């Protein structure tokens, strides 16, 4: 960071000669430097978490904090020894199956709400959104009672059902906005050529919306993987997901920061990667497709 700050004055000098059309008096290079500093500042806690994960416990507890240490994989080994494996598998299972279910349910629904709109499309759309407004906490009590009643506590399928319901409204809205981008002329041309609806969907619509399906899937993956509230209340040792493991790990290893950082890094990594790929679509997902 220090290096970029010192660079600024020397490189900003030529900026002044760029002419009167520049709106900013500060100088673009200075602004760029500022942007970089802020970005690194925001990212720094994440970087720090990853660095700490590669430290020995002694190096994690230093005052002042240190950037120089000999990296070790010891902490990651300890996390796997503590049994994160099954939790990772549960998270993976709940995330993958619920996302697949969401796509299977949302794709035809979004189609019925866009290219071949049914009556009351608006009402249906708002029904979907309104389910996301209802605070989850208000439903947890009956959900717990019912799940307990049908003996489905600590069961991965309970999470699958709940995560599907949680992501379905977002997926319907998002997919709908992708369907609406399909040019109607294409559909008309296909029907004039005598193509059946199934064939039109497969050969005309699907290729156009497949990037949208991929983006929707990534958004669902992010939310399902990160979900904690249902997981902590409805699962334990059998069906617990990674966030649940992390919480249990704090109870047992709360004083071992390096080890906790390694666990947190493993927990966050899949979604960070998915999110980096989907960053253009994140807003679209969270705004229910309102913003492209």
């Amino acid at each position, binding site marked *: 960071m220090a290096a970029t700050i010192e660079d600024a004055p020397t490189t900003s000098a030529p900026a002044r000669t760029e002419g009167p059309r520049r709106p900013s008096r500060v100088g673009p290079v200075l602004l760029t430097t500022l*942007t970089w500093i*802020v970005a690194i500042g925001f990212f720094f806690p994440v970087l*720090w978490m990853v660095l700490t994960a590669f430290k020995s416990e002694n190096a994690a507890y230093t005052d002042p904090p240190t950037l120089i240490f000999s990296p070790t994989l010891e902490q990651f080994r300890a996390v796997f020894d503590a049994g994160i494996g099954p939790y990772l598998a549960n998270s993976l299972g709940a995330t993958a199956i619920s996302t697949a279910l969401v796509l299977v*349910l949302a794709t035809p629904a979004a189609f019925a709400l866009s290219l071949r709109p049914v009556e009351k499309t608006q009402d249906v759309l708002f029904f979907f*959104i309104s*389910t996301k407004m209802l605070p989850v906490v208000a439903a947890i009590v009956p959900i717990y009672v019912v799940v307990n009643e049908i003996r489905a506590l600590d069961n991965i399928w309970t999470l699958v059902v709940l995560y599907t319901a949680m992501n379905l409204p977002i997926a319907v809205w998002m997919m709908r906005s992708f369907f609406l981008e399909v040019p109607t002329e294409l559909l008309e041309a296909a029907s004039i050529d005598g193509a059946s609806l199934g064939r039109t969907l497969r050969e005309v619509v699907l290729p156009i919306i497949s990037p949208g399906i991929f983006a929707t899937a990534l958004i669902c993956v992010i939310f399902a993987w*990160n979900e904690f509230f249902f997981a902590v209340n409805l699962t334990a040792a059998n069906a617990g997901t990674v966030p649940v493991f992390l919480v249990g790990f704090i109870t047992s290893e709360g004083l071992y920061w390096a080890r906790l950082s390694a666990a947190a890094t493993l*927990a966050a990594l899949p979604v960070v990667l998915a999110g980096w790929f989907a960053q253009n679509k994140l807003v679209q997902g969270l705004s229910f497709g309102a913003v492209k």
Partner: protein
Amino acid sequence: MRRAPLLPALVFTIVVTQIPFLLTIYYSLQSWNLVRPGSQHFVWFENYVSVFADSQFRGVALNTIIMTLGSVIIAVILGLLLALLLNRHFIGRGVVRTLLVTPFLITPVAAALLWKTTLLDPTYGLINFVLGGQTIDWVSEYPLASVMAALVWQWTPFMMLLLLAGLQSMPGDQVEAARVDGAGAWAIFTELTLPHLRRFLELGIVLGAIYLVNTFDAVYMITQGGPGTASANLPFYIYQRAFLGFDIGQSAAMGVVVVVLTIIVATFALRLVFRSFGAAGSES
């Protein structure tokens, strides 16, 4: 027939999301503590009376408002500043955006853990180090602010992405014309940029509020609502009542109150915002 493709999703959503709420209303009219089997009986509105008489509940409701609105507003302001910084061509813009997006992607439980330990710890925390070797015990002295710091850190990137999308949808010729007319950067910002961004700002506030009013992970991880209920919000308080106090009737009544309040605020706000985006009005 046209409805057929819609039905599976609709039925699934109704069953999984609506039945629990109907049950919540039913439970809220009962006195029922899981610890005392057989205690279940109808009490009509008694639970609601005690919810409104509960001074802790009112304090927690206030915390929820402060936490939600405070975090959303700070995140929107920071997000706007970042979006303005990123709405230019410069070296490494893609990398900068990727770095800035990351806090939003970190699993909330992991993010909260990160804040509680390596950032806010009084002795070894980075924040105190950056402040020049302070030994402030943030989590116990400023519990609400500590939780909000983690929330703002996670939600600023989202606001930035949303507002950046807004800035990039701005017609460039308008700005160019204003500039030719001799308008300064500040005048362009207040008279062209802000009005254009208005609906994006509204959307950011509404969506942020909807997601953040449900905050649970950060409270659970960083403060456990404490000390006392100083940093508890409604989701955490209801969770405590239900899963630590086993009071089904009371927690259901609180849930209903929260739902009613949310619906009042959200239906109105959401309709407004989505109207202005045309998302709902575009069908034939």
